[in-house]
């Protein structure tokens, strides 16, 4: 990352993207999270991916619930509108706004506490409806903001700093999302910025719900030696499935994707994801195969990371509802208000 400050003389101009924006145009307010928090690394990659994908900031809406993760929408893309709502209810906030204006680029940031416990119902139904949004779960296995209680993604047998042991099995957001029919399911580790960056860029090009579970260690409450979500533990158990490349629709003609081992998934807008397998036999377009591989890896205490499942052709909710192309929010009275003749017709029928 460049350390140049815009005010300093004789420094080279900061690079700009296709829209003419610098990376600085994609930043938000200063983070107030603990130093070293995995969430800040995710924020940094959202900024990078949005800059590199030349996302129009004014179209971005950022939604969150309650918790440490839910604070982070304030830390990226100040050009966009943010909505920090109530605990576990971010998905319904994203649903309403995305229906009101189908031109919005919707990013929801949640945590394992916010999404897998109090917000489970809304998570499940937002995924089922395939609302157009990138749904990021910043997953650390604990409730950080209330000082370190277990969350529902904590592994069975995991220890709290205090020594308390988790007796219950974890809920896995990724297999759950695949089960629910989500067409873009990925898992990343906040300590692997390259992979996260590529997946976020692909996510920006995807039309429906993207579920992105990012293992993001809590440095304050869940980074101790006995933790299964510490930086060290996750790094040692992170098994990337593949080398990923993402080519935005506008660049497709300029970029050559090497033949051979690489599988290419094409999005409706023409963007392409190039997948070069590392994990032998893993096919991210095979829903049941993906489920099997993830379950097997979890049984071994490993984190399979990368693009777990992809199906680029599922219609998002505004399309399913056959909504007009123009944002509903900008329709005016002439289109919305039926004529006096219509009211008269209805009244006649009621007589």
């Amino acid at each position, binding site marked *: 990352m460049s350390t140049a400050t815009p005010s300093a003389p004789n420094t080279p101009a900061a690079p700009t993207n296709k829209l003419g924006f610098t990376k600085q145009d994609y930043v938000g307010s200063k983070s107030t999270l603990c130093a070293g928090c995995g969430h800040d690394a995710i924020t940094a990659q959202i900024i990078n991916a949005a800059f590199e994908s030349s996302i129009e900031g004014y179209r971005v809406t950022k939604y969150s619930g309650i918790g440490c993760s839910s604070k982070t929408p304030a830390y990226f893309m100040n050009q966009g509108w943010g909505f920090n709502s109530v605990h576990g209810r971010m998905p319904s906030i994203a649903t*309403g706004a995305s229906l009101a204006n189908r031109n919005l680029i919707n990013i929801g940031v949640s945590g394992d506490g916010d999404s897998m416990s109090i917000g489970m119902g809304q998570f499940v139904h937002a995924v089922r409806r395939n609302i157009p949004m990138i749904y990021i779960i910043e997953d650390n296995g604990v409730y950080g903001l209330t000082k370190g209680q277990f969350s529902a993604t904590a592994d069975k047998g995991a220890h709290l700093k205090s020594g308390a042991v988790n007796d219950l099995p974890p809920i896995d957001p990724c297999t759950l999302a695949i089960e629910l029919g989500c067409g873009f399911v990925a898992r990343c580790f906040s300590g692997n910025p390259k992979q996260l960056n590529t997946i976020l860029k692909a996510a920006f090009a995807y039309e429906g719900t993207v579920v992105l579970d990012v293992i993001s260690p809590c440095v304050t409450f869940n980074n101790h030696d006995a933790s299964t979500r510490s930086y060290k533990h996750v790094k040692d158990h992170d098994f990337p499935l593949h080398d990923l490349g993402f080519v935005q629709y506008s660049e497709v003609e300029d970029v050559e994707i090497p033949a051979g081992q690489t599988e290419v998934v094409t999005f409706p807008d023409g963007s392409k994801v190039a997948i070069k397998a590392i994990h032998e036999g893993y096919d991210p377009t095979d829903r049941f195969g993906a489920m099997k591989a993830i379950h097997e890896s979890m049984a071994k205490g490993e984190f399979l990371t990368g693009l777990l499942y992809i199906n680029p052709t599922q219609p998002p909710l505004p399309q399913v509802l056959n909504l007009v192309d123009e944002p509903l929010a900008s329709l005016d009275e002439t289109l919305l208000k039926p004529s006096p003749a219509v009211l008269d017709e209805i009244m006649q029928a009621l007589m």
Partner: protein
Amino acid sequence: MTATLAAPTKPGGAKTRINDFSIQVATVNGSGSQTANTVLLRAIFQMGVFVSGKNLFPSNIAGLPTWFTIRASAKGYVARKASNEMLILMNPETAKEDIAKADPGALVIYDEPLQLDKLRNDLSFTPVPFQKLVTASCPEPKLHKLVKNMIYVGVASRLLGIDMEEVKKAIAKQLKGKTKAVELNQNAVMAGYDWAMENLPDQDQVKVVRDNKTQGLIIVDGNEACALGALFAGVTVVGWYPITPASSLVETFIEYAEEYRKDPKTGKSTVAIVQMEDELASAGVVLSAGWAGARSMTSTAGPGVSLMSEFIGLGYYVEAPGVFFNVARTGPSTGLPTRTQQSDVELCAKCSHGDTQHINLYPGNMEECFQFSYDAFDLAERFQTPIFVVTDLDLGMQNWSSKPFAYPTKPYDRGKVLNQQQLAEIKDWGRYKDVDGDGICYRSLPGTPGGKGAYFTRGSGHNDYAQYSEKPEDYVAVVDRLKRKYETAKTHVPKPVFRNLGSDKGVLAFGSSDPAVIEAQDILAAAGLKTDYLRLRALPFTAEVDAFVKAKQVVYVVEQNRDGQLANIFRETYPEFATKFKSVLHYDGYAIDAKCIVDQITAFEQK
């Protein structure tokens, strides 16, 4: 016309009740009785007589007792009447109890095998061989259960003197277009009518005589009226969850939207309707859609409002618009889901934790259900806040006659929304800055191009610039401004309506209590007690309400709940007049009737 209304005199001196009676029909739910009862009601309506119907149904799909009362009133009283002049008893389960409760002298039509005529000797019994008649008139045995109830429509029509042509017309209207069903039901009605002609003597206790009171009127229920208001208000996002008695509001809207909310050029929909997973999610959709610039709504009942209350508080504090219909039912908890009450007054007035105050609209008739639903979307966007439209099961699900709705000519008020150009011109925009001094700030909509106007909406403490703040002065500035905004609403919400007979004694009510209060006022006046009646139509209270409270020596607050919830709000708002407010209450789940109001006010007056 008046000449035909001259009442023949019955031996013994009792006058015939012409166009002034109640009929109660007892059936089993799921037996098609709703169709039969609506046909009977509609036929009387088509005879030009004011009529109202109350369906007292169980929270069940089939097999439990249900009662339907039809009241005809030449004077136009449409409240439920506690006494019935005619009973039609089709349900063996409840027949004996229905007989025990019958008013002396009532005409009782009943299914012959029930053998009710020995139970009392002060009623006029008319046994009818329904099974025999249905077998003769309907060739398909599996349809017998459904058309059996039509037989009593025929019998009752004969006894009441209802023109059979009107009954046939009502059947055709009710079963629009279904030729076979129309024929089947018309045959059944005729079978009952013909049998009654041959076998029953004429009676002169209760009669329907053609009048001209209902010409040009419509029959509609409040949920449909509200749905139409929302249709004309241009609602664009609906998030909802089924609940009795509010479901039919959205379901009716869906039917109308199918027809009237398609872009004529593309055939695509101009409204998004999503059945959500629960009421919490519905509220989230409403508020975020409103935040993003759509006109949004949901429809629910008390249990749904309880679930939505966290979001309602968020909407109040972040200032997101949205319309929340509460078609109230009998609480607490699950309560009586298919019975009426006005027991969510305090819930909707201050829904959610912390200091919250909401604008509430209280329509009291069908025209207001339509108009206030239309207005609610303007108010939501003008005040950037959740608006409650509070009706109840009685208004929402019962049939009411009404003048046709006037076309809402007032253009939409989209409130203080800044566009790209306006945002570019403003130097120091803050989302929560009170520029105009009315407590209402200027908002921007997500997706507005130009690089200005983006802000961070948060349910946590914030300052005028929507920045996170825990500073006491910032917090107080925002909540005090919200209070100011609520004050501003006093000049924007519907004013009360009055029915003053010239008295320093006030009666105050709202919503579905209106017809019973009007009737009670007349009964009391006839007995020498004049009252002035204020019908409240909104929260916050307007200046007219202030003046009424100050001027009256006593204010009888009539409402359909146990705790006198509206009276409590009055006592809190006007502590200096707290002792003026006397509660007149009705809360058994049935719609309020005039007698209970008369009895309670009379008792207060005699103290």
